[in-house]
């Protein structure tokens, strides 16, 4: 059989990888890390030029399906890993056929949950991770995606202005429908509850979980947060005809949650005294889209919210509320944001994403000001942050996983 590589980014170096060797036996020289993570399949991280790719060995048709699914999810703007390609037609030197490989790009600055738990974390980290996962699940469900294997292992987390943003990593079991039934959503939530509790119990058994965190409570909190968010986004509201301000109020509330309303259905009852509104199409990324439009910066939703707040503060401080928003934003970018992110010494740029550093500098300034009892200029806060705080942080640009056992349960028999 001939080797057949399908990829959206033709990269000749792909041909140099040892495709005729089972993934499990790939030489260290090609690998960016030892095999890691709990997985049904063999997954390895591979260096290819300047980038890191995740390679997963699975059956041909499943590889194709997941590749197409990940491409669809990217198209729908759902936070997920970027599919890179599929390799078919692999054979060993003896002509034995090997399974296909699905290649995805490693998501920079992303953190597996095990890595997060092995660091010294603030006690509320578990809660923040669950928040992020709930948001991801709501976004997936709004697009009609049934995940089928919701778990912390199948999710990557990126820091997002002190909170986290979650990304889907594994779409193997997923299905895209025009719309999900309540039963399908419930089923996903049920899977989430069991998997997350299992993963946290495992961390507890390994001594990685803070003692007061209860796996059951934490996993139940995902479901709770999911429902709150889902109801806020899709729930129907009815009110008197005179209370029309409540339509704007609803939209404002959704914006605060980070969603835009693209379509809203409004009906009146037969008597015409009551209005019923239901958001039909909501779109995540309210703040990040606005920031992207104003500044060209593409950052996480919470980071965008933080940056926009700083932009507002800048507009007020420079007394330019009457000016064109784009022009003020451009000045803020050149005079405030970029000087901060550029001041980070090169050797420290792998610690955090620029927008996250900016967020932390703003936080740092707040603490310094509080201690000093007066306003601290951002330049002073920046200098102090870069010398005292940032160097103590771990490098997070390419965290691939921590010490766990490769455990293909189904793809290998003794």
């Amino acid at each position, binding site marked *: 059989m001939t080797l057949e590589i399908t990829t959206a980014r033709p990269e000749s170096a792909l041909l140099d990888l040892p495709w005729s060797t089972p993934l499990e036996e790939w030489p260290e020289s090609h690998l960016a890390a030892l095999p890691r993570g709990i997985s049904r399949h063999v997954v390895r991280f591979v260096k290819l030029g300047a980038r890191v790719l995740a390679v997963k060995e699975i059956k041909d048709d499943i590889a194709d399906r997941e590749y197409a699914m990940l491409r669809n999810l990217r198209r729908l703007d759902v936070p997920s890993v970027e599919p890179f390609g599929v390799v078919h037609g692999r054979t060993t030197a003896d002509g034995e056929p090997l399974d296909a490989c699905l290649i995805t790009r490693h998501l920079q600055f992303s953190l597996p949950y095990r890595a997060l738990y092995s660091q010294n974390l603030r006690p509320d980290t578990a809660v923040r991770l669950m928040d992020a996962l709930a948001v991801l699940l709501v976004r997936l469900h709004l697009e009609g995606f049934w995940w089928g294997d919701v778990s912390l292992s199948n999710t990557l987390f990126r820091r997002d202005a002190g909170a986290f943003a979650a990304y889907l990593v594994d779409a193997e079991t997923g299905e895209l429908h025009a719309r999900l039934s309540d*039963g399908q959503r*419930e*089923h996903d939530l049920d899977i989430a509850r069991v*998997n997350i509790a299992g993963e946290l119990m*495992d961390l507890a058994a390994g001594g990685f979980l803070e003692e007061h965190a209860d796996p059951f409570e934490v996993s139940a909190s995902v479901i709770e947060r999911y429902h709150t968010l889902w109801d806020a986004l899709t729930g129907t509201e009815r009110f008197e005809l005179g209370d029309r301000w409540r339509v704007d109020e609803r939209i404002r509330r959704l914006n605060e949650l980070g969603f835009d309303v693209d379509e809203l259905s409004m009906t009146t009852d037969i008597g015409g005294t009551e209005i019923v509104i239901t958001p039909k199409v909501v779109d995540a990324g309210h703040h990040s889209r606005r920031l992207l439009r104003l500044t060209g910066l593409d950052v996480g939703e919470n980071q965008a919210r933080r940056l926009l707040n700083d932009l507002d503060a800048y507009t007020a401080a420079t007394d330019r509320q009457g000016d064109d928003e784009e022009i003020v934003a451009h000045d803020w970018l050149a005079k405030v944001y970029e000087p901060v992110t550029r001041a980070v010494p090169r050797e420290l740029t792998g610690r955090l994403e620029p927008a996250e550093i900016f967020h932390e500098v703003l936080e740092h300034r707040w603490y310094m000001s509080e201690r000093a009892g007066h306003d601290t200029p951002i330049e002073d806060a920046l200098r102090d942050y870069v010398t005292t705080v940032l160097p103590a942080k771990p490098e997070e640009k390419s965290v691939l996983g921590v010490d766990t056992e490769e455990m293909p349960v189904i793809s290998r028999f003794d």
Partner: protein
Amino acid sequence: MATVTFDNATRQYPGNPVPSVDKLNIEIADGEFLVLVGPSGCGKSTSLRMLAGLEEVNGGRILIGDRDVTNLSPKDRDVAMVFQNYALYPHMTVADNMGFALKIAGVDKAEIRKRVEEAAKILDLTPYLDRKPKALSGGQRQRVAMGRAIVRSPQVFLMDEPLSNLDAKLRVQTRTQIASLQRRLGVTTVYVTHDQVEAMTMGDRVAVLKDGILQQCDSPRRMYDHPANVFVAGFIGSPAMNLMSVPVTEGGVDLHGHTVPIAREDLSGVGKDVTLGVRPEDLELSSDQSGIPVTVDVVEELGADAYIYGSTEQKLLEATGENAGAVPFIARVDGRRPPEKGEKIYLKPKVGHVHVFNSESGLRVGD
């Protein structure tokens, strides 16, 4: 444990002109292993999901035992989807890996231990309960994953193509394991596959679907010997049944001078032609030059038997399912004296081993 009833269950997606599952009626007995099989898009997975509560039911009802579950949420139905999530947790013992979901459900410790021990006994995992998964072989790990579903002791197990990502050898191995485990547990099981061999080897009964419509629901033996229509005839069996259009004559149907006798009352009102089906193993070489003339293209020697694949001037019907595509005429012959490639032979069906179908409706004629 419980029976499962599909009572005119219908699922139609918005915007689709025809239902994906159309008035499905199946009664599954307590403890039965029922396999839903059919080509892709036939509605088998949709039917399973309707039972699981993952698809809305637009018409009809679904019962588990005497309970109407049509509008219940998945977790209130007491069914378990097996093999969906089989991650094992490395720091937890085998017992905890099997029982943790019960903890979430609030089952008390002693009861969990009891159920885990019972499941471990069935799965031959008792000596490993206090070890970590790392110490287990791959096969044992797989059984731990099964154990997780077993300890929940649901009324019904649901399995949707659980073997699809295994290679051929593992598939056969796991197939046997699942079937024997199901028999030992006696839990009502509904299993979906596109593979008719899997269906025939595992199921107590097999339900064949096509275009959302149930074609036949019978034991594997009955299904094989008495396919209800041309579709089932062509779908079940490997190699596939030979299906051909033949003229009706006095007392039977005609195969180039050889009359296959068929009861007169069965042939009344079928028209000038019928579809005749003969399985490859139900053919024998004809000594005179009557019967189905076949020119041998390929001889596949399997030792005791040989299969010949040939072409014939007989009008062949296209087979369905995994057998679709090329339609050679296939016959099993004595492996010690197979005909040679290029040879022209004449074949006759063995007496009583033919299947007759109405050429208009495709339905079986007679018994």
